[in-house]
């Protein structure tokens, strides 16, 4: 019961994050969507570890890895936003059409 609630919340966070990452024009808002998806993944990992793994320590390790992924995504993402802005003066996805198929 409790595990289902936590997992449904995680699914909702991932869904909202997917909506944000696909719909937002601004690079920074797009990254908020990615962070929200990782937040949902973190919630699901914590729920599974706590309620169906009987306290296996590897579950906590996975949560720490997800947090490291969040930090990497933020740092590299913002560095790329700065680099793109410097090169193209662009801060929305529509301004970069060079790679559009």
């Amino acid at each position, binding site marked *: *019961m*409790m*595990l*289902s*609630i*936590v*997992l*449904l*919340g995680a*699914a*909702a966070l991932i*869904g*909202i*994050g*997917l*909506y*944000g990452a*696909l*719909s*937002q*024009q*601004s*690079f*920074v*808002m797009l990254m*908020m*969507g990615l962070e*929200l998806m990782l*937040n949902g993944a*973190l*919630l699901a990992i*914590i729920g599974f*570890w*706590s*309620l*169906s793994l*009987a*306290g296996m*320590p*590897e579950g*906590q*390790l996975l949560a*720490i890895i997800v947090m*490291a992924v969040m*930090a*990497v995504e*933020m*740092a*590299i993402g*913002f*560095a790329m*936003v*700065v*680099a793109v802005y*410097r090169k*193209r*003066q*662009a801060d*929305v*996805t529509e301004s970069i059409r060079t790679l559009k198929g």
Partner: protein
Amino acid sequence: MKPLFLIVLVLFAVWSGWRVFRVDSMVRASFSLLLSFIAVGVIAVILSAPYIGIATIFMMAVEMMVMAIFMVMFMMNPAGLNPMMMVHQHRFAIGAGLLGFAGLAAAVLTSDLPLAPVPPGKAVVADLGHELLGRSMLIFETAGVTLLATMVGAVILSARSGRFGAADEGSRPPGLAPGGEPAGRRPDESGGHTHHHGGHE
């Protein structure tokens, strides 16, 4: 009592996550995201993962402060005074989000989830420490090296001076209108050698 508190926190995490894309100011959006992370951290503390929960709260507090600074740097709509709705492929995105949620929810509701809660009184933080510096040390160290590589990459990507001169040399900003004059500064004109003098023609 505990399940009720958990339900409230899960709902709050989802609601504040939803607020991220509803508010008009990007700074408010980043603080909404911070609230969502804090709710997940408190859920982790309730679900007997105190180290992960507190670490999430601290790390995300700092990360969202950095995010707020970037939000101010790239803000379209200072102070949220105007309604902000900067979206593309909106219906597709709503559909994909709903589909993702429905698929994951169906998987949660239809599968037989194993139930084995953490035994009360288990030393979970000590377990994590022994795991990090014991059997899984290589994974932990790999995460450290990855973060170092991230630092190097972030500095290289965001530095103005590249290997072959200034990173923005020859760049031409897009026009304010399609095909119009470039907006902002003009790096092309600062070089001097591309300058056209009046009497050469």
